[in-house]
């Protein structure tokens, strides 16, 4: 079976801060990581390869330094890594990004027919959750998003549990298919020493805008229908009343609760036991 994992190198957004003086993004010193959801997609692909045999190919789009994320991904046991990197790809929105990645997957598919594609449910720096479905549509593969469990994989079908607001949907799709995955899908492994050594010597392939017959009108800034018109700090919420409960917590608690009832923020439910008003 041939598995492809779409993976993105992202800034660790939990480390990104806004400069309180200039109101701009402070990006210096923010570490780059493998998008956490993608890591779970990679883990699942490697587990399935170990069980069923086959090959795991990682595909990423990004600046040259994204090679580091690919080398890291190789330490978990992937077989091949391809980085799509070209200035002409820069500034692509999710429609254009999905186009570029789908071209690469199409190329792989011609020589090594793909059975299953994995992508994270979203990237933590954009949270759009659009690139995975966009790739599936362009390749004509069924998409199964928000996967929390791969129940069964056969030569022709995959059965997946999907997470929705009201419950779990069990769906079966014909192969080839594309899954976007949640963290609940699996627990990540640690890199093995032999894989770490193999990865240290491995150099990811780099494909640029000339490697494949790209349509320049569909990529980069000019191939992106959406554009940012304005950026601003999130609206602040003005603070309210502060109660110092360091000395007498019990009486402060009584005061707070009394105020909450007086202003009808918390109300006595007439249906509650003993309720009488």
């Amino acid at each position, binding site marked *: 079976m041939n598995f492809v994992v779409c993976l993105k190198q992202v800034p660790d957004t939990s480390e990104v801060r806004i400069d309180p003086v200039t109101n701009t993004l402070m990006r210096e010193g923010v570490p780059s990581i493998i998008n956490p959801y993608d890591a779970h997609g990679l883990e699942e692909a490697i587990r399935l390869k170990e069980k069923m045999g086959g090959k795991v190919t990682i595909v990423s789009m990004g600046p040259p330094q994204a090679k580091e994320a690919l080398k890291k991904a190789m330490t978990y046991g992937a077989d091949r890594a391809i980085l799509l990197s070209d200035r002409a790809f820069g500034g692509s929105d999710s429609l254009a990004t999905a186009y570029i990645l789908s071209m690469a997957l199409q190329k792989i598919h011609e020589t090594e027919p793909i059975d299953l594609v994995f992508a994270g449910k979203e990237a933590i720096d954009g949270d759009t959750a659009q690139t995975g479905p966009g790739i599936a549509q362009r390749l004509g593969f069924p998409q199964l*998003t928000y996967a929390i469990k791969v129940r069964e994989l056969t030569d022709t079908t995959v059965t997946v549990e999907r997470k*929705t607001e009201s419950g779990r949907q069990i769906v079966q799709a014909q192969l080839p298919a594309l899954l976007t995955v949640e963290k609940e899908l699996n627990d990540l492994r640690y890199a093995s020493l032999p894989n770490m050594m193999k990865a240290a010597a491995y150099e990811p392939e780099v494909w640029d805008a000339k490697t494949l017959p790209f349509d320049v009108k569909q990529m980069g800034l000019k191939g992106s229908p959406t554009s*940012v018109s304005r*950026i601003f700090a999130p609206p602040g919420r003005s603070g309210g009343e502060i109660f110092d409960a360091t000395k007498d*917590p019990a009486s*402060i608690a009584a005061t707070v609760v009394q105020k909450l009832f007086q202003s009808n923020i*918390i109300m006595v439910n007439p249906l509650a036991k003993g309720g009488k008003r």
Partner: protein
Amino acid sequence: MTVAVDKTKCIGCGACVVECPVEALDLIDGLAVVDPSKCEDHGKCVLVCPTNALAIPNQSPKAKEELDPKAGSEFNINDPQPDAIKDYAQDNDKKTIRAQVTPVAGGDVWSGVWVIIEYTNGKVAPVSWELLGEGRKLADAIGCGLSGVITGHQIDSVIPEAFAYGAEKVYVIDNPILKDYRTEPYAEAITSLVQKYQPEIVLMGATSMGRDVFPAIATKLQTGLTADCTVLGIDPETKLLQQTRPAFGGNIMATILCRTRRPQMATVRPRVMAMPERVDGREGELIQEEFTLSESDFRTKVLEFINTDAKSAFLDKAEIIVAVGLGLAAKRNMAIAEELADVLGATLAGSRGAVEAGWLNHDQQVGQSGVTVRPKVYIAIGISGAIQHLVGMETSDFIIAINNDPEAAIHKVANYGIVGDLFQIVPALTAEFKKRLQHGVAN
């Protein structure tokens, strides 16, 4: 002279690269870079830059202010344009927007606001009605109609509700193939309606269904899509949809435009827009279309649906939430939060830290990578208030924070900030609530 880039401010959005008339700008490693041999100091990039990262060095700060009245604060593309670039704006912006819109499917009508109504397992997702309320405002600002779209099977009961919540027209595709939600048939059904009737704006809730089907539809239509919007607006001049969403983990807000392709598509977070008034008995036009595909056209099938009735599944609909953070120190201390939640009939939730510590499940996480909540009362216990958490709860009606650090960010968004030892304060609050609620005495 050459335009200078302040690398600390540049966010690599690429707006300048698109605007530059001589292609002197490029994005390299996520930052704008100017080719001095091409730059002719038009200054269009300076004006379009959302973060004021670009400047023409020989201009005094005063000259820059004259050029752009908003310089120094944030630049808004929709503010009145100064004379220097007015011609350009008329030349490019408006013409592009109003006349050079590339229709994605023949014709050039593209009028009206559509809301896709999410109907699964016999229930309408409430965000659908919230969006009809918001869609009304957008349609009025443009001067166009508002329609609802229902795809599914046996959906007749939903139609009068859509009219009651403000739809003037309702488009329907009712077919057994659409009984359970699946990406392929739903994307085909909605795409066929969009292609036939050409709405200029199409909205849906940012639910697991909206976030699954909309990217598929936008790809089919080759148009732009903005996910997870929290604010929508209409530019009074261009009538473009202003789609505002949190970006970079909620650290900044970005307003996105889809200038040249139609429809403009967006998903909107549930419980951000207000629920509109329901007027029963209101009528409108019903348009029914056939679904022309058959089961053999699709490669997915739903085998089973398992309802999960966990309280946390409805976190985004909870009226009162008791949320815990790492200040609670250990899992065994969850008991004091649970007791408070029991007394108030509240739902338990937590910060990412509390979830990663294993005190709560992933689906109980509030914040950017979790659920956005908007309860009547949000009680934050031992939560410091990282920005990722705040974006998920700061639209709560009333916030009570308990944290021993008077400088904690959570106190800055709280209506009541209680500073002190949570291990003393929370049990004291629980006791006080218990006293009043069990005796039914309000004062």
